[in-house]
């Protein structure tokens, strides 16, 4: 089987298994529990019934997810650079980054809503808060794990600290960075969803996927709730596909995590 075919076949096979298991569990559930796990068919139907609102909500959430993701990547890159430059900055700043990550959204949300207003801005900020930490940690670890021999090479060249970072530490950190990026790509849509139901806004077009999820959940529309979750997942897949392609482009020629074709 060609690699391309495999890439389609194996997830599909697992998917078939999952769906089979899903139907089986559904069938095994006692009657009064079934509503909690609507069948894939029911979810597909819900997709069609609610296509309009789901599309609208998905577009809405995508904006927040994209902006928050972009913000997280930018900010975390700069932060990671700062952290990698000195152990003192690291021990001085790291605890406060942790605090940012650990403070429950419920504490920030009211302030956000009061200060920047509910809606896209707040959703973006919450997405950012959820995404940035794995990025910072991974990128920093990458930046400080540079091969010591190469660090000495640059020390030899008496490069500026900045040059060392740009031409050595940054490329060497790419495998770690992309690992963080993969985590963040998965967190972005779910972050936007959380942001949406803590500080979103229905202004204009009726809110994002987080709004929908709460509404469907409160109305016991479980099939629609599952469809909403599936939409979030699709968003995440698109983000991840982007990250994986970029990672392949940048790393496959030289990094040991990609096999060479020339065996």
């Amino acid at each position, binding site marked *: 089987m060609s690699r391309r075919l495999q890439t389609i076949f194996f997830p599909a096979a697992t998917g078939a298994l999952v769906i089979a298991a899903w139907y089986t569990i559904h069938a095994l559930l006692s009657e009064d529990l079934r509503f909690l796990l609507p069948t894939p068919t029911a979810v597909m139907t819900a997709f069609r019934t609610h296509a309009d609102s789901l599309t609208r909500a998905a577009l809405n959430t995508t904006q927040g997810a994209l902006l928050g993701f972009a913000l997280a990547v930018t900010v975390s890159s700069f932060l990671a650079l700062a952290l990698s430059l000195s152990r003192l900055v690291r021990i001085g700043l790291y605890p406060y980054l942790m605090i940012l990550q650990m403070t429950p959204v419920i504490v920030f949300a009211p302030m956000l809503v009061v200060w920047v207003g509910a809606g896209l801005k707040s959703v973006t900020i919450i997405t950012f808060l959820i995404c940035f930490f794995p990025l910072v940690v991974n990128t920093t670890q990458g930046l400080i794990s540079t091969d010591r021999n*190469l660090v*000495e090479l640059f020390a*030899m*060249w008496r490069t500026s600290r900045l040059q060392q970072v740009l031409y050595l530490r940054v*490329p060497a950190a790419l495998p770690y960075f992309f690992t963080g990026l993969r985590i963040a790509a998965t967190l972005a849509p779910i972050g936007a969803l959380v942001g949406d139901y803590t500080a979103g806004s229905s202004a204009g077009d009726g809110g994002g996927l987080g709004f929908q999820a709460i509404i469907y959940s409160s109305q016991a529309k479980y099939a629609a709730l599952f469809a909403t979750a599936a939409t979030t997942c699709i968003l995440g897949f698109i983000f991840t596909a982007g990250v994986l392609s970029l990672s392949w482009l940048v790393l496959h020629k030289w*990094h040991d995590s990609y096999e*060479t074709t*020339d065996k």
Partner: protein
Amino acid sequence: MPALLPPIVEFREATKRFGEGPLVLDLLNLTVQPGEFVSLIGPSGCGKSTLLRLIAGLTPLTAGSLIVDRRSPDAAAADLAFVFQEPTLLPWLSVAANIELPLSLRGVAPAERSVTRRRVLDLVRLSEKANAYPRQLSGGQKMRVSIARALALSPKILLLDEPFGALDEMTREHLNEELLTIRERHAWTAFFVTHSVAEAVFLSNRICIFSANPGHLYTEIPVPFPYPRTEATRRSRPFHDLVADVSRILRSVEPDTV
């Protein structure tokens, strides 16, 4: 030897140990004039690489003093190039980019960079691998790229740590001669670690023989042959005699120190 110039490298009572470990270099005294070609030779682990790393400012002295180009090793050495014992190439750059990188870090213009790169790649006979990545090279090829990269810098002091160890004799001799040719144009000072006595004699005007445990400078032997040296030098009687002498001294140093 231009004795009036201040020495370019001067160790005085220099001592080195790593952390709490044993002495690696003991009470080293060594003065090198600009333009000298000094070979360092001695058993494995006697501190040759460490000595080069000290000159390069990559590791600090434990005691004593070291002056490089009239400054401390940290302060000196914009004009220093080091061919490490291991190739140390950046895995994400092609051969060409690896060679050009230090040049571009110094702000050399792209056109000039690529001229230099072509010249040094030719010199190490690897022009056809310019676009390969390090992981596609043989051991000797990687080392040659590393040498080319150092030569591209036209440094004032060149530190070479067994650069030719992984090379076949022909390539090795070819590069020996190239090294001397380049040196005629740029009068750099070289510190050259090798295990080949013949190579040391052929290239240098002074050979430092080290013994181990702790590493110290056992003796220095001047090499009187005039430059330029050629294939003829290599075949001459005095050359062979000196090689034999040095080998003998080396043997006398080693047995119980290895």
